[in-house]
């Protein structure tokens, strides 16, 4: 069963995502709302990881040596300035979308397996991921005009 591969992928991507939110929080302390919300969201992603644990125990997980699409290295160094913030949020959006669709795939498997427990985990984590995406989109829309039009140099 390839579910184990997907659980591994999910696990890694969630960890990466939580880490990325924490990096952005640290790098953008001058935007207190970004800092605070990224911290809150990172803590909730940790929560998703713990919800995944019993599932992983049941189905096992197979981790690929290096999930090619997740470049955590990008977040070692956050950017600065209005456009920098925008780019960092956009990267988070891309990572978050990746986990979103991964949950969707796992959710489909859960339906096929008629695994009620997994279905519940997926549904609550999908809601949580939707919240991340919605917040990122809100904040990106708010910042974009000022960063792209009003900032000089």
């Amino acid at each position, binding site marked *: 069963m390839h579910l184990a591969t997907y659980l591994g992928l999910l696990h890694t991507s969630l960890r990466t995502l939580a880490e990325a939110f924490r990096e952005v929080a640290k790098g953008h302390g*001058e*935007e*207190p*709302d970004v800092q*605070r*919300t990224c*911290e*809150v*969201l990172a*803590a909730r992603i940790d929560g998703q990881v713990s919800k995944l644990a019993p599932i992983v125990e049941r189905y096992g997980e197979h981790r690929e040596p290096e999930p090619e699409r997740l470049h955590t290295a990008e977040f070692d160094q956050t950017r600065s*300035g*209005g456009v920098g913030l925008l780019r960092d949020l956009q990267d988070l959006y891309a990572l978050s979308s990746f986990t979103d669709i991964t949950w969707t795939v796992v959710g489909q498997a859960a339906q096929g397996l008629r695994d009620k427990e997994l279905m519940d985990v997926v549904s609550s984590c999908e809601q949580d991921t939707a*919240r991340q995406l*919605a*917040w990122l*989109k*809100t904040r990106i*829309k*708010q910042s*974009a*005009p*000022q960063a792209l*039009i*009003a*900032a*000089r140099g």
Partner: protein
Amino acid sequence: MRTETDKFHPEFHSEDAGYCHLVDRIADVWGPRTPHERETNWPVRVDQQLADGLGESDVDRWVQSACVLCSNGCGCDIAVKDGRIVGVRGRADDLVNRGRLGPKGLYGSWQAHRKDRLIRPLIRRSGELVETDWDTAMREVVHRSQQLLAEAGPLSHGFYTSGQLFLEEYYTLGVIGKAGIGTPHMDGNTRLCTATAAASLKETFGADGQPACHADIDLCDALFLFGHNMAATQTVMWARVLDRIAGPDRPQVVVVDPRSTPTAEAADVHLAPLPGTNLALMNGLVRALIERGWIDEEYISAHTLGFEKLKTAVEPYTPEHVASICRISPTDLLRAAEIFGTSQRVLSTVLQGFYQSHQATAASCQVNNLHLLRGLIGKPGSGVLQMNGQPTAQNTRETGADGDLPGFRNWDNPEHVEQLARLWNVDPLTIPHWAPPTHAMQIWRYAEQGTIKFLWISATNPAVSLPELSRIREILRKEDLFVVAQDAFSTETTELADVVLPAALWGEKQGTFTNLSRVVHLSEQAVEPPGEARSDLDIFLDYAYRMGFQNRDGDPLITWKDAEGAFDAWRECSRGRPCDYSDITYERLRAGSGIPWGGERLYVDGVFPTTADYCEDYGHDLLTGAQTTPTDYKAERPDGRAFLKAAEYTPASEQPSDEYPFLGTTGRTVYHFHTRTKTKRAPELQKAAPEPWVEMSAADAARLALADGDVVRVESERGGVEVPVRIGRCRDGVVFLPFHYGFQAANELTPTEWDPVSKQPLFKISAVRIRKV
């Protein structure tokens, strides 16, 4: 002397019962009791204060107005003699105060008028502010404004206004910002005081607007005050409560406040949660109501959305769990829940203890939820007042001077933008609506980053009232930021401006404003402004004229020339919206004493302004502030039902540590208003509270070996102040500082952080340490 009042209530014109001329409202803040029982009218008691040595017969004229020193908006008449304001008197027939005035109204409202006013415009020349004439000052403002519009576009402009101007002034400013310049960067200092009131009303009911009214105090069986020290903030409203408490069938009173205030002392149950834990407490109350079945299932299913989700969200908040988070007794929590759950009529008020604290909007929404769960809204004696702090804050929100679209219109609804474009005859694309308006703290951030280069500050003193003052002062000093400050007095902010415009005060200009229970008052001009000072309205109109703002036909964008003209334009703008003023006129306002928009109570029929094409906002996720998309909103089919929104409690980021072991919270004294610009010029008020202090519990003081009056240094990570200690009634581990003072200012301590939904800064929670100096 007879007044307009006499015509309507002949029984009030004599000097008999109910008159209370010799008042010392410093010692006796709330005045003598006039007890009454439930469902009887609050008795009249007229308070009056005249300048020393003057009697009533010396007064030439009484001019109709209402007090602008807090959000209660007490109706009053201004006494004029020889062209000067010499006192005030409460209006006996006013539905808000029935003749009463509190200490700020009696002493603070009129004595500042002739003291150290700004009487000529100032302009910065070689680093110094020097006197100039209006033409030079305005030419400079317009020159900089036009230059920046050409170079950098509308996003280079920001406006930071007040909660103390008149409706007409805000609306004019709103039109200038949205249709003249086209910038989303406009907000009021109302962001600091009432943004959460507006946000929680929008989230739950679909639009701003206080559901309840003042008369509900006379009718209720239980009164809940959430983070609201009413005895200090709205003294006349509190007098109304005291008169019920002293009456035969007193309401039960529940107070949520970490301090033991006079309000809390009057309570049957006082819950003192640790600062930052309000949401846990509220989730506990909601859970208890549901668990005990103290809910109206019929009302819930007919008039609300989201009950099951709410129930699940509050499930973990058992009394014991809540008690451990908030450090309160679980028995008290259940007792409070029982009073809420079993009283026939419940009135709730909410203020800064919730609004300026952690998870502000989420906690305030839970108050709305308690009422919805019992169907106690829009009924006599039952409802919610999400209070305003400043006197005219309601108008900042209604007219769009806080950045929202005027008339509670929804920026995310293209049809609402179209309506405004038609009304103003401008291209809808001019009106900024691509994202929510820029909130105050973000405006300051853009100025700090140098993308806002023109900042116009009116009637407010951010160099004292904002968090992290050292940062704010640095921003104001920035070379590449042009600052216009418009004020009646020289303040910490005007000192740092490039152009200072002298403004008229209350009593020196005409206009209307709306109080915390939607009651509109007309405040007439009683005297001429001093020197060359002008009304804020005239200043904005002059700017609009000089800038040459035009509509699509090339005619002037702003067609009105005076306050009544502005009000009539606003009536048109508000027509058909929840805050519909179309049937309120200056004439009607003159003929009575206070008219509420929307009727006495809102939501009498349980129908809320949530239909998708009518609502003011599509709402947010309360935890993060993420917006609900129009599609998601419509999919819920709210159609007139209210939202039962929920969020989980998360610990605040400021927590006491070994290094900063206390939680500092800020607030008001009964004698001062805001940054004391007016109240410090009233000798009685200034004497009663001349300087700041820090209040702490006896146990904490003993541990630090501090005695009353010892001077201490209170420090947070951001800054420190040196003030004397008052051993007071804080709970252990919590210290309190009044925020009014520009020296040793409490906001040196506060962090820059805000609520994710309302964007209101958190003043109520900073980790601090204390040592003797």
